[in-house]
C-alpha cells in the first residue's frame, strides 16, 4: 500500500515525458473549444439512410402547397452559409478603426491566477510535472495519471 503511493510520484524524472509549453497551450485551447460545442453526441439522424429525408413529414405536407415568394438565388444561398470564423475574417476588423468585436473583448485580469485540482475541483497547491495540470493530493495525482495526464482525453 505504502509502496504503491510512493510509486505515483517517484518515477524516475528522466524517464517521464514532459509536455512543452506550446503543447500545453494547445491542449488548453482544445479544452476551451470543446466548451463551445453545441452537442457532444452524433446527430441521431446522421445514421439514417438518405432516403428517409425524403419521406413526407406530417407538419410539412400542408405547407408546401403555397410557399412564400422565394428570394433566394444561388448567390443568396451562399451568403447564408458562412460560419462564425469566416464572417469574422470577412469583417476585416484588425485594420478597422474604432471599437469593434475584437477590441471589445475583456482584458486579462489583474488579479492573481487561482488554481484548482483538475480532478476534484478543490484548491490545489501542486502541479503535475508532465502536463502542467493542477492537483491537490497524492490520491488525485494518481487518478490524474491514470485517466488524463498524457492521454488525450477531452
Amino acid at each position, binding site marked *: 500500500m505504502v509502496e504503491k503511493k510512493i510509486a505515483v510520484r517517484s518515477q524516475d524524472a528522466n524517464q517521464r515525458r514532459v509536455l512543452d509549453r506550446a503543447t500545453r497551450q494547445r491542449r488548453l485551447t482544445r479544452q476551451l473549444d470543446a466548451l463551445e460545442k453545441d452537442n457532444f453526441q452524433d446527430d*441521431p439522424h446522421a445514421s439514417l439512410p438518405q432516403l428517409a429525408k425524403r419521406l413526407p413529414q406530417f407538419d410539412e405536407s400542408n405547407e408546401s402547397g403555397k410557399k*412564400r415568394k422565394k428570394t433566394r438565388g444561388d448567390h443568396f444561398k451562399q451568403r447564408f452559409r458562412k*460560419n462564425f470564423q469566416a464572417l469574422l475574417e470577412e469583417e476585416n476588423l484588425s485594420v478597422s478603426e474604432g471599437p469593434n468585436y475584437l477590441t471589445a473583448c475583456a*482584458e486579462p485580469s489583474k*488579479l492573481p491566477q487561482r488554481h484548482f485540482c483538475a480532478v*476534484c475541483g478543490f484548491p490545489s497547491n501542486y502541479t503535475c510535472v508532465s502536463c502542467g495540470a493542477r492537483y491537490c493530493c497524492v490520491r488525485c495525482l494518481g487518478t490524474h495519471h491514470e485517466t488524463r495526464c498524457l492521454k488525450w482525453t*477531452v
Partner: protein
Amino acid sequence: MTTLVLDNGAYTAKIGYSHEKVSVIPNCQFRSKTSRLKTFTASQLDEIKDPSGLFYILPFQKGYLVNWDVQRKVWDHLFGKEMFKVDFSDTSIVITEPYFNFTSIQESMNEILFEEYQFQAALRINAGSLSAHRYFQENSSELCCIVVDSGFSFTHIVPYCRGKKMKDGICRINVGGKLLTNHLKEIISYRQLHVMDETYVINQVKEDVCYVSQDFYKDMEIAQLKGEENTVMRDYVLPDFSAIKKGFCKPREEMNFTGKYKTGEQILRLTNERFAVPEMIFHPSDIGIQEMGIPEALVNSVNNLPEEMQPHFFKNIVLTGGNTLFPGFRDRVYKEVRSLTPTDFDVSVVQPHNPICYSWEGGKLLSENPDFDEMVVTREDYEENGHYICEEKFDI
C-alpha cells in the same frame, strides 16, 4: 398597425405583440433519439416525451446568427399559425441583435424581414438598448446606467448615457450559460457519471442547484467536510422520463450521507460544482480564459469613461440575462464592485424582477413611445434606399 417585439436570443426568443404578454421560446431545433424522423422546432420541444440525449441545432455561433436555415424554420414557426399568426401586411417588428453585429448578418436580416416576410416596418436594435430604455423610463432622474447582460453565448457590459450607448465602454466576457452548462457536464462526466450527451438534463441541474458564492474559499472548505456538516452538498435525483419527469434536489432531511439510497433512482452528488461553475463568470481565468470577470471588467470599463460620469454609472448597474438568476448573483456583484470603487461613490446594483424578459419589456415600452415611428425603417424606405437607410437609421 400592430408591433411584434422579438428579443432574438441565441438560446431563447422572447417574443410577443406589444399589447400582449411575452413568451419565452427556445430559439433552436431539436432531434430526439426516440422520434427518428422528425426535427422539432422551438416550442415543439414540449412534444418530446423523452428528452434524454436531446440533440440541439442552434442558429447562433458564439452569439452571432450564422445558420439562417435553422433561424428561418424557427421564425416560420413563431410567426405562423401555430403561434403568433402574424399578419405581415399590418405588422411592424422590433428585433434585437448582438453588439458589433457583422454587416453581412445585418444585411441578411434586412432582406429576410422586408423581402421574405414583408414586414411593414422594422427596428433592429441591441437588447441592452431596450433594457436601458426601460431603466431610464422607470428612473427618469438618472442620466446614465450600465447594463450587464449575461446570456447564453457571452456577457456584455455596456454603459449608456441619456439613452445612447457608449461604444468605447462596451466590454465582452466570453463566458455565458452555454459554457457553464458544458463545463458542468464535463466535470460531472469526469468525476462521477457520463453525461456528455445530456445537455438538456444538465442545464436543468445547473439551474436547480448552482449558486454564486459570497465567500468562495469558505464555501470550498465547507464543501470538503464530511457528512452533516457539509451544508453545500446536495444529492440531485436525475429524471428517468417515465416515473420522474423532471430532476430535483433531494430535500436535506431525506439525504443519506453515505450516498447509498435503497430506492433505485440515479443520483448526482454535487459539492463544489454548485458554486465553482457560476464562479467562471467572476473569474474566467479559473478555467484558463484569460479575461476579467464581471466586477473587474465593469469597474475597468467605467474607469475608462469621462470622470464626471463615473459616479452615475456605479449607482445604476442593471443586471439582465438568464445567468443573473443564480442565487447570490446580485449580492456578489455588489460586494465586489463596492470593494473596487472609492468609498465616496454610491454603488447600487439593480436586478429586475424578470431579468430574462427585461429587454423585451423595454421593446414593448419603446414601441409605445411617440418617437417610435421616427425610429423604424418602413418597407417603402427600404425598397427605395436598400441597406443604406437601415445603416443610417439604426444605432447599431
